[in-house]
């Protein structure tokens, strides 16, 4: 099938196209220079054309996501999507069910989503669910924060075996990225404790969170993984945690990235930019984090915006969720994973009338506005932790319109937001090009997948989002409602050269790819490391080593990224 998207106003930052009227040609699922034969034409005159959206951090599928849905039947009852037009039924406001998540992302113009915290033991479950999420390409990030092998090799001072073991876990779990959640804290949680600073001791292993982060950083670059380490530092959501955040980011300064991407990815930065020492004198330290990120080149972050909704918080950070449960007294569940990590889940209501939540709302926007280069600060709500991903259009409108933010500041949120943050003083407004960066181009670049995703140059996947917004006619600053409405549903979403969404309605539901990394290290080293695996599996795991890895055939449409890392020996 061949396509011509004519006369659209194109924003493609990776190819330096900034609002030009341009035709996009697609053949055999890829962007091409010329078409060969008969083709379908889509008239995009007066419409906004962008590459398909890329979601870098969203808990839309996986083990704890399913546990979250089970924990919250009342969230499922809140929104129900009936079975219609050949689509599956679904439900859930903060945690839409697997099929529905795929539909909703495609309707917003997203064509790739990544689930960012897969306990390795839940890999099989995660891939089963990812297989059910239609349309979008996806990947999963296995967690290494409390991994016994990692901590053992750190203690023994064996970086080679550490890298080999990370490579094995990537292959076994079909994961793409090293995710670190509250490094070491989840292991200490097994003893009823936590790790709040980067120099805390991890019980039983005598390592520190700083060593875990540095060790994995080094392994990541030696294995030449496409993305950097994906980091959720210690002390999430506690007043005054900005110090821990910056100390953690400093660890990445000395490690050189193997490619042109960052060496540390700080996720949901909003939750890590708190000042004060209690909830009473809680304040935003977004300016401090922004200053740090502006001054260096090794960090990219995402905002983790709070959207002031009732939502379900779920992280691999069990102690933090327990802390939240003690604040709210709402139900919670801990999903401890042997030898690996300890996720937790609890519902949370972000209230406009609450000063702390209002400041959190402000921090997410402050970060986006204070960090100069949009490639360094991407848009995400840490779905569903800061709010559901269906709120992205509103966040885009906030970023593009100072009056919209002012309206929220003056009339919607608690006055505490004015005192506790600098948002009221910021008059920067995002351009359409900036929005294209923070929702697709920046994501693809940070993930190291920018050859295929996040742009409209020749050779890229034929993923295009066409929105019913005329950039030459609309003033986003004044007409923010039109922006919010326009980004909510595309006029067309095209994925691999196939029309998926037409006028906001899903018309096709193909199976997306699942990307995973397979770094191949030196054979001898791999064999040596495998002996340790066998021993640990026999001694500690409740699963047999042979039953642990997820087979390639388990992935409905797997895409292996093979990496030659044989110099790791």
């Amino acid at each position, binding site marked *: 099938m061949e396509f011509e998207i004519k006369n659209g106003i194109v924003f493609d930052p990776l190819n330096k196209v900034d609002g030009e009227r341009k035709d996009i040609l697609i053949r055999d699922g890829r962007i091409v220079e010329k078409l060969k034969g008969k083709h379908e034409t889509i008239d995009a005159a007066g419409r906004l054309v962008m590459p398909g959206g890329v979601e870098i951090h969203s808990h839309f599928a996986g083990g704890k996501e399913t546990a979250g849905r089970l*924990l*919250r*039947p*009342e*969230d499922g*009852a809140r929104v129900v999507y009936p079975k219609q037009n050949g689509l599956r039924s679904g439900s859930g406001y903060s945690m839409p069910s697997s099929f529905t998540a795929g539909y909703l992302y495609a309707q917003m113009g997203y064509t790739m989503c990544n689930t960012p915290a897969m306990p390795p033991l839940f890999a099989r479950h995660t891939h089963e669910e990812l297989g059910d999420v239609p349309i979008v390409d996806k990947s999963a990030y296995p967690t290494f924060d409390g991994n016994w092998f990692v901590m053992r090799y750190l203690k023994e001072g064996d970086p080679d075996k550490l890298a080999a073991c990370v490579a094995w876990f990537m292959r076994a779990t079909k994961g793409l990225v090293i995710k670190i959640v509250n490094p070491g804290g989840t292991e200490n949680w097994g003893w009823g404790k936590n790790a709040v600073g980067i120099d805390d001791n991890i019980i039983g292993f005598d390592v520190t969170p700083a060593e875990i982060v540095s060790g994995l950083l080094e392994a990541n670059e030696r294995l030449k993984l496409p993305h950097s380490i994906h980091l959720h530092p210690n002390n999430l959501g506690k007043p005054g945690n900005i110090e821990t955040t910056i100390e953690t980011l400093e660890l990445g300064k000395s490690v050189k990235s193997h490619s042109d991407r960052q060496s540390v990815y700080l996720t949901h930065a909003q939750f890590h930019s708190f000042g004060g020492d209690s909830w009473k004198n809680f304040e935003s330290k977004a300016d401090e984090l922004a200053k740090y990120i502006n001054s260096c080149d090794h960090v990219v972050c995402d905002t983790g915006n709070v959207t002031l909704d009732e939502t379900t918080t779920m992280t691999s950070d069990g102690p933090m969720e327990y802390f939240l449960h003690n604040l709210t*007294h709402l139900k919670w569940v801990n999903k401890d994973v042997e030898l690996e990590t300890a996720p937790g889940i609890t519902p949370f209501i972000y209230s406009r009338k609450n000063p702390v939540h209002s400041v959190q709302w402000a921090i997410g926007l402050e970060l986006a506005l204070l960090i100069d280069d949009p490639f360094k600060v991407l848009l995400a709500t840490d779905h569903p932790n800061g709010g559901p991903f269906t709120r992205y259009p509103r966040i885009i409108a906030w970023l593009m319109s100072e009056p919209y933010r002012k309206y929220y500041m003056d009339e919607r949120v608690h006055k505490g937001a004015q005192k506790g943050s600098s948002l009221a003083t910021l008059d920067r407004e995002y351009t359409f090009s900036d929005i294209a960066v923070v929702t697709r181009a920046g994501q693809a670049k940070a993930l190291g997948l920018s050859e295929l995703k996040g742009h409209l140059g020749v050779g890229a996947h034929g993923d295009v989002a066409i929105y019913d917004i005329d950039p030459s006619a609309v003033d986003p600053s004044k007409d923010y409602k039109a922006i919010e409405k326009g980004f909510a549903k595309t006029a067309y979403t095209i994925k691999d050269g196939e029309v998926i969404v037409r006028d906001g309605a899903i018309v096709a539901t193909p199976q997306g790819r699942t990307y995973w990394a397979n770094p191949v290290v030196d054979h001898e080293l791999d064999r040596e490391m495998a002996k340790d695996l066998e021993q640990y599996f026999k001694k500690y795991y409740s699963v047999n080593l042979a039953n642990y890895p997820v087979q390639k055939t388990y992935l409905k449409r797997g895409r292996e990224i093979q990496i030659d890392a044989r110099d790791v020996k």
Partner: protein
Amino acid sequence: MKEIVLKVKEQPRVGLEAENIAPAVFAGKSVSEISALPVFEGNSERRLDDFFEVTGVAAETSAETRIVIDGDVSLTKRIGQGMRDGELRVKGSAGMHLGSKMRGGKITVDGDCEAYCFQEMRGGTVHIKGNAGNYLGSAVRGNWRGMRGGTITVDGNAGSEIATFMKGGKIHVKGDCASFAGVHMNKGLIVIDGRSERRIGAEMIGGTVVAGAVDAMLVGFTLLENVKDPEIEGEKFTGTYKKYSGDHADTRAKGTVWVKE
């Protein structure tokens, strides 16, 4: 007040989902429009007049509309769901989820009502002349925000787990009640004239339960005193009542249970 009468013609083979039987839906519609309203029998869509004979006149507003259902509708679910005003009378027994999320108006049932009726109710007046099923006036499964307002009076008995997570309003059961009345209750008043089975007020952190008799109290309750002819939440009760505080299984416990001697 104008009246629409639904006379039962045929019983559905499986549960009938009929949230369209509500004053706000009927208001301003003609009899033929009301007859054509969709209802779901299992997964197949049917018309209201496949099951009911519709007569009468609907008022322009829901507040002026009264619906009378003549016959047994114990297989018909979600009648009067989300009702804000107007009146509804069932001259027979009513099915599950009757008046769930109701905010106002008046519902009278001459017979019994099934389980899950008046869940998360916020206002209005309800009178059940027969017995009520389980989960009367409770929270939807999983929710921690249950009934917040309105009054429910049951002339007969009530089932298990009534008023779970109650946050306001009043439930009065003139007969007996099965176990777990007022579990996780936070505010509001439950009065059971007859006897209640075990685990009354389990994990309650606030609110008041009054019972004529209880099979056994939970260990989390502390007997405070015996009070003769107490006045509870502005109502006078005759006889000697034991006053308990609890449920101290939760550190925030500030609930009260009164049991008649």
